[in-house]
């Protein structure tokens, strides 16, 4: 019996998603936090825990001061980048399940387009500031952007299964189709054709074009996690955290592993799948919506296969067959995902999962009960009570 699955997401809040918010990251975080607390019909005084990313510049004390939170009894931060998006919810759920906190605010906000852009080249090597194995093994050889670092992994997938960049283009078309009917999406009413994808410039030849990359976004999102017992007294349909876990494997780096195993696969995601299915007793056929972290399009292909929605090397045909679109077998990234809606470090995809279980998504999947949310190195299953 996992106490973790007796917790729920009861409030969500977000700012608009833009390329230039015109206000501070602290203001974005504070607005999202205040909106999430209000959505939960709680007061700031009810919040006694806070979780964000280790690299967040929005200090908990600054956020609690702005949001009017009286006292924090629990704080925790998740390691690394977007791969840890779902780990924030795991940390919050673990805190609630253990009694360390009663109601935890989870937040992430940044000006990732108008401020510090993650996709830009690393201009100098400062080994002392990074963790082993460090960048000495990459930067001197020209692996100076996330796109390049990841592409050196994805190329093995392309080679193994005969996948081309045209095949990768299938996903951005779906993401933008979903975004086009989501008023909160940056690319609302702006669908994309495969021809337009193929006309976008190379970022890493011959693997990634510009439209294979997630957006750079300004914005903030937040969620409130509390116990199922308390959730029942709150206005929204409780979104139970049926399972939450992480996977980091030995010899792996941030989201790429060069040094071991078959690089045409995503072993961490496969482990997440095994753990999430085992904890919930669900199978891939039971999942109604999948929210899949996509810094770059190939991670969708690798994760569709890792979670068993299709077999190894089958993602191209699976996507081409319409299976991940609204009305398909397993709708994926119904908000438009990180390519179509916004890139708030993967956290906005979790909020879409909450809306799908509540039944309030702009692109609602009828009767959605089980939502798998993956950030590649961390994952969740969200479900209503009793499901």
């Amino acid at each position, binding site marked *: 019996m996992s106490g973790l699955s007796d917790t729920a997401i009861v409030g969500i809040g977000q700012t608009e998603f833009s390329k230039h918010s015109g206000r501070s990251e602290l203001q974005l975080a504070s607005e999202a936090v205040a909106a999430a607390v209000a959505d939960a019909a709680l007061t700031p005084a009810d919040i006694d825990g806070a979780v964000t990313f280790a690299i967040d510049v929005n200090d908990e004390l600054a956020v609690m001061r702005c949001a009017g939170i009286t006292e924090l009894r629990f704080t925790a931060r998740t390691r690394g980048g977007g791969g840890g998006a779902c780990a924030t919810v795991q940390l919050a759920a673990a805190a609630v399940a253990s009694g360390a906190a009663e109601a935890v605010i989870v937040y992430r906000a940044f000006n990732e387009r108008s401020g510090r852009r993650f996709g*830009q080249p690393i201009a100098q090597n400062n080994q002392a500031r990074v963790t082993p*194995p*460090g960048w000495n093994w990459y930067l001197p*050889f020209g692996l100076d952007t996330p796109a390049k670092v990841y592409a050196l*992994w994805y190329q093995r997938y392309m*080679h193994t299964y005969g996948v081309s960049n045209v095949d990768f283009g299938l996903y951005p078309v779906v993401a933008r189709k979903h975004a086009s009917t989501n008023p909160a999406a940056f690319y609302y009413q702006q669908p994309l054709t495969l021809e337009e994808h193929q006309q976008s410039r190379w970022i*890493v*030849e011959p*693997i990634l074009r510009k439209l294979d990359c997630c957006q750079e976004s300004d914005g903030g999102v937040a969620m409130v996690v509390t116990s199922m017992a308390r959730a029942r007294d709150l206005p929204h349909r409780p979104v139970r955290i049926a399972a939450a876990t992480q996977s980091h494997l030995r010899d792996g780096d941030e989201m790429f592993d060069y040094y071991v195993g078959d690089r045409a696969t995503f072993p961490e995601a496969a482990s997440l799948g095994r753990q999430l299915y085992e904890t919930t007793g669900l199978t891939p056929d039971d999942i109604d919506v999948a929210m899949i972290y996509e810094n770059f399009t190939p991670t969708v292909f690798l994760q569709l296969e890792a979670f068993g929605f299709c077999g190894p090397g089958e993602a191209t045909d699976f996507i081409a067959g319409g299976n991940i679109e609204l009305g398909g077998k397993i709708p994926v990234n119904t908000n438009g995902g990180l390519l179509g809606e916004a890139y708030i470090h993967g956290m906005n995809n979790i909020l879409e999962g909450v809306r799908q279980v509540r039944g309030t998504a702009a692109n609602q999947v009828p009767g959605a009960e089980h939502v798998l949310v993956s950030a590649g190195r961390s994952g969740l299953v969200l479900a209503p009570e009793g499901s």
Partner: protein
Amino acid sequence: MGRRDVPGVIPPSPTLDDQFFWDGIAEGRLVFQRCAACGVVRHPPAPMCGECHSVEWDTQESSGHGYVYTWIVSHHPTKPDTEPRVVVLVELDDGIRFVANLLGVDPEQVENGMEVGLSIEAVDDVVLPQFRPVNGSGKP
């Protein structure tokens, strides 16, 4: 925040854990760390052997021979007119995968499984382990 200018080649910034590696490169040798207790060779370097917890180690010189496992063509982010660099993940005969560059080959001609050999060279004044194609038939 504007796009910063980036040097052509960013030099390594050695630490206590990998100074030996860069010293080896400066001497014209590609060396990997080998556990003195259990003999397991590891890369990237680490201060402790994950197999037996020994912190004692020596080095093993690489065969310098292997095959291209994956590759990309890397265009310089702020100098679009410079020659692209082919970045390869080489599977060495030593049983280690190693990120480096492939020289002396047209980016159009790079293939998975290409047979490559070590060539330690100065690239924009930075001495780095690089690879060049060798006349073989590729990985069987």
